[in-house]
């Protein structure tokens, strides 16, 4: 017992101010958000990254650089109101098609959502390229399969999506509560046989198959 105590004092956690410095340095150096677990793993034994982050967040409040939460990770990002100064740093991105943007919004608000559900909402078939583009941007990933006939794969948004759009979590999507209250996020089955989004999708089956395969690879 005495030995254990001696050992613990040997590996005493650094003072909180020092822990804050460490978390700051690690977050500064990382382009990707860093989880609390990873911070704890990289900081000296006994550190409390979560506590350090609380102080760090306060320190960066109102500054030119802010500490933001992304899912269960944290990142330092420049303040959005100063974007006008950063013309030099702007990364040119491919313009997303209207179909891709709509599909992205549907996935974000309805996740986990199947391709059939997306098509039911949009009233048209979802082309392979649209989903591929979102997967490529790493804004969308495969979720678990639905426990419905055919066990279709589902789509979800990623932490990269949250990071890109400055969202703390998918729950913070604007208007989510209102949409839910209005019943617009309900999965209301169509009355009768109003099956939209069926026609004109020659490569539909193939698509579905490929999604299945991929689902297999990425799925749970």
């Amino acid at each position, binding site marked *: 017992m005495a030995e254990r105590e001696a050992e613990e004092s040997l590996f005493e956690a650094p003072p909180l101010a020092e822990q804050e410095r460490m978390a700051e340095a690690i977050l*500064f*150096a*990382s*382009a990707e958000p860093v989880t609390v677990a990873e911070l704890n793993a*990289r900081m000296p034994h006994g550190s409390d990254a979560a506590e350090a982050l609380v102080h760090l967040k306060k320190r960066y409040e109102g500054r030119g650089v802010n500490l933001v939460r992304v899912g269960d990770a944290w*990142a*330092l*990002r*420049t*303040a*959005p109101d100063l*974007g006008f100064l*950063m013309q030099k*740093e*702007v*990364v040119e*991105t491919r313009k*997303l098609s*209207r*179909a891709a*943007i*709509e599909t*992205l*919004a*549907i996935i*974000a*608000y309805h996740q986990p959502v199947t391709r059939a559900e997306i098509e039911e*909402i*949009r*009233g*048209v078939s979802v082309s392979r390229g649209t989903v591929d583009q979102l997967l490529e941007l790493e804004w969308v990933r495969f979720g678990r399969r639905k426990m419905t006939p055919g066990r279709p794969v589902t789509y979800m948004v990623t932490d990269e999506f949250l*990071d*890109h*759009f*400055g*969202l703390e979590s998918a729950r913070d*999507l*604007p*208007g989510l509560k209102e*949409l839910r209250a*209005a*019943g*617009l996020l309900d999965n*209301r089955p*169509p*009355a*009768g046989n*109003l099956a*939209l*989004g*069926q*026609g*004109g999708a020659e490569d539909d089956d193939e698509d579905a198959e490929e999604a299945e395969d991929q689902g297999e690879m990425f799925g749970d």
Partner: protein
Amino acid sequence: MAEPNLDNVTSVDARRAAEALIVDVDGFEGPLDLLLTLSRTQKVDLRAISVLQLAEQYLGFIREAKTLRIELAADYLVMAAWLAFLKSRLLLPPDPADEGPSGEELAAHLAFQLERLQAMREQAAQLMARDQKGRDFFVCGVPEDVTRTRRITHTATLLDLMQAYSRIRTRDDFRPYTMDRDRVLTMEQALDRMRPLLGFAGDWTDLSSYLPEGWGDDPGMRRSATAATFAASLELAKEGRIEIRQAETYAPIQIRRKNADG
């Protein structure tokens, strides 16, 4: 140019709208999108929309397109057929024998779909209007990669240790592995023994008499020597050096030298 035969319910506004839309038929993302656009001409909240009127507008649009010989994708025509069906449901008194959903239920669901699509469009627009990474806010310009250093550590168990020690301590007692087989006669050894003896084998002699000295007493050794000697005799027979015979099963096996001249 023939005047399109629009239904009398259709307002002048809607007809004009349909004519304007028809030019841009490729611009619609399917029938639901077209319905949503048509619904705007009613200038009311989607919740208060008249589905009946919307159905008329849509059917008017399709008729107009046909008049102008514009090819429409199949799903637009499927929707037109369905809306015609819905229209009849809404206008005719309900058939008590029919168990399907009522016209009102079907209309309500269509209104829900339109409202939902509209909501998703608005959210999509809001989403894209948000501050975006790489456009409005930025990551650190000089991210440092975490350098991974690999450290190799070695380990062993007590059993490893004890096995290692026992290995060392018993090394002196070890005989070479082949020596271990000192109770086994190989065919090569039997051949070596038999070849020089063959000269004396002009007559039929029991194979057992060729066993090496001292191999006949111990049963294990005798078995090994007998097998090896028999195998050697087969080898010699194959070479044409000897002949083999056995009077009956389990009778002694006998060999004799085979003379070149018979």
